[in-house]
Each structure stands twice: as structure tokens, then as C-alpha cells.
């Protein structure tokens, strides 16, 4: 009889048990909270986990996670533990990146934002972070305006600007290979500014551009562009495409034997695509933004390599380093400012020099206060087909150039920084 009056299928005993449990939870709750201490600092990451840039996106995450684990093992930031939330921004959908950014800021209330590999997505995210007043570091999107004409008080960048990349390599290409250049350029923000930088440098050096092939992001077949490029008879074929496009392009260049007729080179090169190429496609002079094989005795380097190898089974790439530096730079800024408040932390990050165990390279590495751009070294050298006795060593570093020697002055970047009062 009693069942008929109960709530749904619940009988009196069950109801009592639930009530007792709820009551107990009320009593117990304060103890749990006090034991937990202060709430953790939340770091929100929106980076590609799927699509063309999934590999660099993942490597940046590995570097970030290492930094977070190191910090958490040593008292976190200002005594608070760090919690990292990673969202998939996709590789090329700015709408998705903005949506994820808003979710991280508005719903998860992150204290600090990281992203994006794709330049265009990084720009879109910076709009949102600026509007919300959240400190934001772009680990690996290169297009100039992020720390140039579109610079913002809350946005910093770890990787090079495209102009720095062009300046790093242009002289060397001109002296080694000759003065007629033909370009294969990815047709979006990154490629456009990188090409402009190279073209300006080449003009200054007295060379000529024989042509610029704009290729859509995600091009699989480069043969039509390569046919045109070879017909123009340049001294150097300058390959500016990145990621999988780079793999496809160099693979086809080597199959066509073009590298035996024209010099093949470029600006930015990364370990991810080089690992994905067959040995015969690894040709030319390039710059790496960071490289793992350096002079013995570089402080902290061996530990970093060992830790990353433990996590990914591979040597670190420039992307891993970007992620690692991003988190550590944020931690250093908060410790210096003694708060995680965005404006104070941003002020502390401007002009901050990275300590040896974080910069992991020679030369002074620091954020420029004027445009919030990190001055990192450029590693110039040439690709190794099979790695000098070490299958993981696919790049021979010839020189390591200081970042501020290749960066345009703050005035030339077009950045007008407005720090809020």
C-alpha cells in the first residue's frame, strides 16, 4: 500500500538513505574544501588536435604538459597548483577556434589563454582574449601583425614573426645560391607576410623574383606549380609552405629531380615534416626556430630532451619547446608580479629575459616590451638525409643567430602598444 504513495519507484527506505547521505555530505563538505586549499590556476589551450596541424599542435601540448608537471611538483604558481584545459581549435576553422576560446574564458574561467598554431586562428583568438582582458600567449602562429600592426597589451608571442624568418635566411640564400628566386607560397596570412618579407629582403640585396606560386593550404599535388617554377629558370626555388604541404612539395621536388637542377631551400623548416619525408626529399638550406642537437653543456638541455623522450618517445621539436616556454614564461611573469592578475602579469612579461634552463640555447632570449615578441635565436643550417650516424638528427646547424639581430625594430613592426592604466 505504502508504495502507491511513494515518489515514483522510490520506497521509503531508499528515500531515507538518500536523505541521510545528503545530510552527511552537508556536514562533510567544509572539511573537503579546506583540505583542498586554494583553487588551482586554470590554463586554457585552444590548439589544433585534428587536421593538417594536429602534429605540431600535439607537440606543443607535450611541451606545455611537461612545464605544468615541473611547476606543480615545485609548488605550482604562487603556491597554487596548475590545471590545464585543452580544446581542439581545428586546423583551419577560425569560427571553431573563437567558439572554443569563448568557452574557455566564459564557462571555464581560465586565467591564462594559449593558442594557436595557425596564424589566422591565433589572430581570431587574440580578438577575444583582448576583449575579455585575459593574458594570452601565441606559442606558434607566425604572421607579422600578431606582434605588429595588430599588437595588443595582453598578447605575447613565443615563435618568430615571418619577417624575422625571412631576415634570418635571405642573406645566406642570396650568397650561397644566387639572385633569381621563385617562390612556392601557402595562400593565407602566414604565407603572404612571409613572402613579403623575403621579397623585400631580396630587393634590398639586388635580386629578382621570377614568380610566386600561391598554393591553397592542404595542396596535395604541386606538379603544376613546379612545372611553372622550373620553366621560369630561377637560381633558387624557395619553398614557404609548411606542415604536410611541405612534405608533399619536397617529396615531389625530389621525385621530379628538380633539386638536382635548381637549388631548393626555404625559410622556416620543422622537424615534424622532415621526419615524415623519405630521406631523398630532405634537401636544402633552412632555418629551424629551435633545434635539439646543440653544443654539449647547454644548461638544462639534456634533461629537457630526456623528459620529452620519456613522454613522446621522440626528441623535442621547436613546437615542444614553444609549449614549454609558453607555460614557464607565464609562471615567471606571475611570480615576478606576485599576482596572476592579467595587467600586472603582462607588465612583468614585457622585457623579461628567459633563464638558461628555460631558453635552452645560446644568445639572450627575451620578450620585447614594445611589441611583446620573444627574441629567440634562429638555427641556420641544412637538412641531413639520413642523420650523421644518429637517425634522429636530421638537421646540421651551421650557425645560431640572435633574435634581436634579425628582428625589425619595434617602430618598423607597426606596433603601437596601449597598456591599460
Amino acid at each position, binding site marked *: 500500500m505504502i508504495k502507491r504513495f511513494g515518489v515514483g519507484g522510490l520506497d521509503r527506505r531508499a528515500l531515507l538513505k538518500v536523505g541521510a547521505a545528503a545530510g552527511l555530505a552537508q556536514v562533510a563538505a567544509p572539511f573537503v574544501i579546506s583540505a583542498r586549499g586554494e583553487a588551482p590556476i586554470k590554463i586554457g589551450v585552444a590548439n589544433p588536435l585534428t587536421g593538417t596541424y*594536429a602534429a605540431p599542435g600535439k607537440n606543443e601540448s607535450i611541451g606545455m604538459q611537461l612545464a605544468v608537471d615541473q611547476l606543480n611538483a615545485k609548488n605550482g604558481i604562487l603556491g597554487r597548483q596548475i590545471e590545464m584545459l585543452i580544446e581542439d581549435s581545428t586546423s583551419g576553422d577560425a569560427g571553431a577556434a573563437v567558439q572554443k576560446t569563448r568557452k574557455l574564458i566564459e564557462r571555464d574561467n581560465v586565467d591564462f589563454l594559449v593558442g594557436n598554431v595557425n596564424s589566422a586562428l591565433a589572430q581570431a583568438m587574440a580578438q577575444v582574449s583582448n576583449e575579455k582582458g585575459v593574458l594570452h600567449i601565441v606559442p606558434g602562429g607566425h604572421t607579422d601583425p600578431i606582434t605588429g600592426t595588430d599588437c595588443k597589451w595582453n598578447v605575447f608571442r613565443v615563435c618568430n614573426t615571418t619577417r624575422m624568418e625571412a631576415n634570418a635566411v635571405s642573406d645566406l640564400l642570396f650568397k650561397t645560391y644566387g639572385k633569381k628566386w621563385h617562390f612556392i607560397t601557402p595562400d593565407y596570412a602566414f604565407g603572404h607576410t612571409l613572402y613579403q618579407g623575403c621579397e623585400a629582403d631580396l630587393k634590398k640585396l639586388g635580386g629578382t623574383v621570377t614568380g610566386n606560386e600561391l598554393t591553397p593550404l592542404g595542396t*596535395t599535388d604541386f606538379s603544376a606549380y613546379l612545372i*611553372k617554377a622550373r620553366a621560369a629558370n630561377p637560381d633558387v626555388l624557395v619553398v614557404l609552405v609548411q606542415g604536410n604541404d611541405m*612534405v608533399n612539395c619536397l617529396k615531389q621536388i625530389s*621525385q621530379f629531380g628538380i633539386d638536382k637542377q635548381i637549388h631548393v631551400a626555404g625559410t622556416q623548416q620543422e622537424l615534424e615534416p622532415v621526419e*615524415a619525408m623519405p630521406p*631523398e626529399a630532405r634537401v636544402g638550406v633552412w632555418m629551424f626556430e629551435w633545434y635539439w642537437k646543440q653544443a654539449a653543456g647547454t644548461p638544462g638541455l639534456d634533461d629537457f630532451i630526456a623528459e620529452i623522450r620519456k613522454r613522446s618517445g621522440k626528441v623535442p621539436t621547436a613546437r615542444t619547446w614553444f609549449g614549454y616556454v609558453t607555460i614557464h614564461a607565464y609562471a615567471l611573469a606571475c611570480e615576478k608580479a606576485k599576482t596572476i592578475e592579467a595587467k600586472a602579469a603582462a607588465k612583468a612579461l614585457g622585457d623579461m629575459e628567459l633563464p638558461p634552463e628555460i631558453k635552452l640555447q645560446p644568445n639572450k632570449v627575451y620578450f620585447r616590451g614594445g611589441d611583446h615578441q620573444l627574441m629567440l635565436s634562429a638555427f641556420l643550417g641544412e637538412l641531413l638525409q639520413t642523420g650523421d650516424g644518429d637517425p634522429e638528427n636530421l638537421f646540421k646547424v651551421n650557425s645560431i643567430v640572435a633574435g634581436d639581430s634579425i628582428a625589425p625594430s619595434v617602430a618598423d613592426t607597426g606596433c603601437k602598444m596601449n597598456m591599460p592604466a
Partner: protein
Amino acid sequence: MLQLIFFNVTNGLIIGAFYALMAIGLSLILNLSGVINFAHGGFLVIGGYLAYALTPRLGFWGALIVAPFLTALIGFAVERLLIRRLYGRDPLYSLLLTFGLAFIIEDGTRQIWGANGLPFSVPAALTSPLSYQFFFITGYRMFMVAVVAIVVALLFVLLRYTRIGVRIRAGTLDLETVAALGVNVRALRSLNFAVGIFLAGLAGVLAAGQIGLEPTMGDGLLMPSFIAIIVGGVGSLTGTLLGGLLIGVASGLTAVIFPSASEAVIYVMMAIVLLVRPRGLLGEEGMLT
């Protein structure tokens, strides 16, 4: 200029042959099962990765033969377990299913083989260009075209002269009548699906020699294949072959004149065909309506 155009037409035919291989597989499945297989690019990726995994043991040539069969086997299982259940329903259901499958395959390969691409080499004998002047005609590309030609020829022989082939063609036109005549339509569809996926697997192995082997490699090849079908005409395999070759040549030619439109031109072609001749160049009136 004339030489450049000639180069690009030849080059376009080479690329077109590859699109055609993909598109014919898609077309087979679409014609008999009414399934728009969005996971076709995924099966291509599976073919490529299986070849990569098998190469150390079987060499390139062994992998070239075995990997497509294994891919077909996976395709067969997928048809039996998943796709078959949706035949009676609106095509939208199977489209959604294969769309989801494409994501699962992409992430699955990423889980197994990693997000970064893998180096896949073709035998040295095939990598060099045939002549200095025609540098874009490499041994490997000639080999690709030859493989496509042989496989397409075999497929047409199979469809024209064997009992199964005749049933598949008949089923394309009127499946109910074929079923009423006592043909086991379920088995026929499974087999046909597996043949289509075999072609995707083969395309995957061939593509891995030419472009980077990575989890999204099928994405860029899938849309041109769909367009090849639409341009050539739904329901006609000859049309699909023609459509593949046509869009290859069109994008090659556009690359000479207006490079940044070389990708868009195939969509423009599709739009024009849909406006002027909605059934496609060799398509039958009223297919798939």
C-alpha cells in the same frame, strides 16, 4: 607557353587517372547501394598505412598487393556490421554514418600511428624522371597510370563479362527486379562494397608514394573524386573515368593561367555541368532521384 600548356595537360591526365581510381570506387558503391561514402578518404588512409606497416616484411611490391586486399576486408566488415542496416532508409542516414566513420578512421590512425606523418619511400627504380625535358613524368607516375589503367580495364571486363558483373550492372539500374529474379542482393552489395573499398585501398598505397602519409591525406582527394562522379554522370562508370581525367586536366591548365583558381576550377566545372546538363556528361536521366 605552348610547351607549358602541353606539360600541364599531360600532367593533368596523370593526376586525373588517380582521381578516377578513387571516383570509380565511390561510384560503384553509390550506384548499387545508394550510399554516398564519405569514409572513402578514410579507407584510402587505411590502405596507405597498412602498406607502410607491411613494407618492412613484404617490400613495396608485396604491400602494394596485400594492403588493398586487407583494406577491402575491413570494408567488407564495415558493410556487414554497419552500413547494411541503413539500406532501407533515407540516404541521409548512411551519409551521416560514413561521415562519422571518416572521423573515427582519422582519429584511429592518429592513435595507432601518431599525429605526425610517416616517411614512405617507393623503390628507387621508380623515383627518377624519365627525361630531363619531361621531368614531371617520373617512373612512379607512369607506374601509377599503368596500375590505374590495368585495374580499370579489369574492372570493366569483370562488369561486362562475368555473372557477378552483369548482376552489379543490372542492380544499378533496377535492384528490385534483380532481387525478384532470385539474386542474393545482400551478398552482391557486400561484395560490391568491398570491391569499391579495394580501389580506395589501392589508391591509398599509390598516393603514399607521392604525397605525405598522414591521417588527413584522404581529405584533399575525396572532394575531387565526388566532383568527378558528378561531372561524369551518376550511374556511369565510363563517365566517372572521363570526369576524373577532365578535372585533372582542367586544374592543371588553370594552374598555368591563374594558379590560385586551380582548386576552385573543378567546382566551377561541377556547377556548369549541373546547370547545363544536370545528369552529367554520360549519366543516365533520372539516376539517383
